């Protein structure tokens, strides 16, 4: 199926879901106001579905909206988004009957910042970016530049274990097999692991001195759905509300612990951070720890018990005296 055909099929399916009143809302992607950006499209109007797009720039994880919308929702989901949805179902935050998962097999999302860096230009100066198989062709100042796709995908896409949703109601195109490249995806984390404890702590201290506590990371995360976050508690006040690095770090450490077994490595937190703190180097580490210690992968098996509500009689004993 060509991309255009896939897009048309998506629009047709979305329209019929609305017309048949199987859903109250359609949540998907539309072109954004900036070049090479998409924006979430949330609509009850069947005429809007013609704005739905499928392209390599739909990085947002729309699962976030499921905890905010009332009623039945038809949602466009890449592999990672579908894992977040499954995780929300496991947490009893979303009821499976109320969602129609419209699965989109995904070849990875393009990280514009990586392209900008390689091209040495801001994205609004670039004429076109197209994906052709394993290459991305960037049109710029009348010339074309080919870049291997692996150099411009998001780090989390390089490690993707589920490009095609496993849990879905409709699948728009042929499934795409997973080809995770852990090594490439893990480069930043591996470097950190080579440092001493002291150096690592200094690294994070330095990174979180920039944090302005805007909470974009938390607000964009589908797994961060608490009505009241611990950072807002007043009695006791766990951390100061002004962004001191010490408290910024505690906020982020606890956030990641809360996300154990629910973070699906969708990469949204890192993408949202306005001061470019490498947040995925935290969330992916927790994701891996959960796998290593408990063999658990968030959002993979809809029948699995949530990680922290479950236990095995014998596990992780070596931490205890």
């Amino acid at each position: 199926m060509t991309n255009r055909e896939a897009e048309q099929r998506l629009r047709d399916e979305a329209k019929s879901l609305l017309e048949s009143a199987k859903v109250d809302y359609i949540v998907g992607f539309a072109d954004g106001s900036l070049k090479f950006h998409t924006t979430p499209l949330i609509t009850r109007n069947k005429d809007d579905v013609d704005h739905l797009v499928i392209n390599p720039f739909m990085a947002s994880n729309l699962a976030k909206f499921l905890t905010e919308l009332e009623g039945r929702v038809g949602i466009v989901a890449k592999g990672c988004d579908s894992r977040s949805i499954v995780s929300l179902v496991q947490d009893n935050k979303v009821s499976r009957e109320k969602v129609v998962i419209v699965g989109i097999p995904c070849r990875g999302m393009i990280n514009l910042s990586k392209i900008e860096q390689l091209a040495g230009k801001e994205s609004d100066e670039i004429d076109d970016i197209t994906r052709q198989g394993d290459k991305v062709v960037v049109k710029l100042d009348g010339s074309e530049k080919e870049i291997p796709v692996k150099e411009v995908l998001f780090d989390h896409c390089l490690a993707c274990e589920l490009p095609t949703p496993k849990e879905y109601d409709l699948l728009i195109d042929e499934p795409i097999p997973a080809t995770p490249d852990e090594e490439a995806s893990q480069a930043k984390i591996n470097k950190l692991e080579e440092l001493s404890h002291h150096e690592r702590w200094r690294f994070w201290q330095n990174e979180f001195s920039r944090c302005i506590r805007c909470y974009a990371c938390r607000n964009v995360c589908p797994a961060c759905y608490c009505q009241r976050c611990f950072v807002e508690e007043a009695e006791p006040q766990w951390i100061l509300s002004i962004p001191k690095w010490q408290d910024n770090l505690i906020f982020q450490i606890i956030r990641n612990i809360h996300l154990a077994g629910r973070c699906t490595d969708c990469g949204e937190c890192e993408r949202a951070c306005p001061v470019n703190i490498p947040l995925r180097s935290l969330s992916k580490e927790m994701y891996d720890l959960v796998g290593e210690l408990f063999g658990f992968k968030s959002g993979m098996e809809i029948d699995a018990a949530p990680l922290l509500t479950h236990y095995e009689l014998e596990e992780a004993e070596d931490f205890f005296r």
Partner: protein
Amino acid sequence: MAQDSEWEPKLVGFLCRWCSYAGADLAGTSRKKYPANIGIIKVPCSGRVDPLFILKALRLGFDGVLVSGCHPGECHYQTGNYRARRKIALTKKFLEYMGIDPRRLQASWISASEGGKFTEVTTQVTKELKEAGPNELFADDK
């Protein structure tokens, strides 16, 4: 790390009231000598220990934290310690990745009758914290 021989680590122990807390009590009533470095906070179950307590203690400048509960299979609430085990294991590993010396977070299973074990564990943990040196994790750079 510069430290004089006088320096003594400060440690917080979150002890389950049904077992480890009673174990500490037993150590006291049977006049066993355990290090005075530990300040004890009684919790209803090891499962009550929120990783936030651990971070808060370190943020306040304590050199280490000990979480102690009933042996597996003996939790008063059946499963609290199993759940604690998952949380603590993840917390310990994650804190280490952040750059926190793993000796600063310790955990044990101590029953109400194990006054001796309580003495051993606190002695050992205190020794390790002494080796680890003062906690300057959250200190502002001078």
